[in-house]
């Protein structure tokens, strides 16, 4: 399955460091075969979200198989929704209602195994039920 086109993952956070760190963890756990794009912080690098950064991340991670976007909190969701309302992307795009770190890891592992957008979205959203203790 190594030559299959995999679903890409976009991590949207109020913090660039948080988005990049979660991307790094998810990439390590899933073996590095999935494109994970981090979109954290405002345009000037502060705490907040940027529609331009999210757009670039969706373009970077989007494949013909599609992309699943995970927002961290509150206005991350609003920023993603605003982008999706004003712009069409070539492949399927899904917005996940999921815990950020666990969802990113579960989504990326499912994408690495060749799951489609629906399967990757489901893996992310099921992460809210996973117990860590």
């Amino acid at each position, binding site marked *: *399955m190594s030559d299959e086109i995999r679903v890409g993952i976009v991590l949207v956070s109020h913090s660039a460091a948080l988005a990049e760190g979660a991307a790094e*963890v998810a990439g*390590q*756990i*899933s*073996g590095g075969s999935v494109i994970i794009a981090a979109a954290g912080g405002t345009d000037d690098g502060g705490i907040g979200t940027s529609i331009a950064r999210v757009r670039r991340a969706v373009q970077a991670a989007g494949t013909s198989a599609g992309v699943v976007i995970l927002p961290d909190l509150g206005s991350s969701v609003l920023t993603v929704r605003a982008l999706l309302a004003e712009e069409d992307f070539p492949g399927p795009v899904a917005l996940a209602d999921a815990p950020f770190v*666990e969802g990113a*890891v*579960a989504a990326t*592992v*499912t994408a*690495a*195994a*060749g*799951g489609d957008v629906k399967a990757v979205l489901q*893996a992310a959203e*099921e*992460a809210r039920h*996973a*117990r*860590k*203790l």
Partner: protein
Amino acid sequence: MPGSSEAAITLTGDLHARPAGSLAVTAAKFQSAVELAVGASTADAKSVLAVMGLGATRGQQITVRAVGPDAGEAVTAMIGILAEATPVGG
């Protein structure tokens, strides 16, 4: 040809996040249902969060069970990852 298969291995290292990811990615490629059991806890091997949630540590015995058309291959693949990945950690 549906079947079932089972094997066990004693962990030589803790079951960290990276081997858990490797187990889940590999398990998902099989048609069979694949389950990991440690003591009284079980996890769907295709769910990385469930595998990590087992909290399996060095010295514990982990049992791999698979049911489905490729059960034997699935168990062999899981045992191979568990044998190789756990001493390294991660």
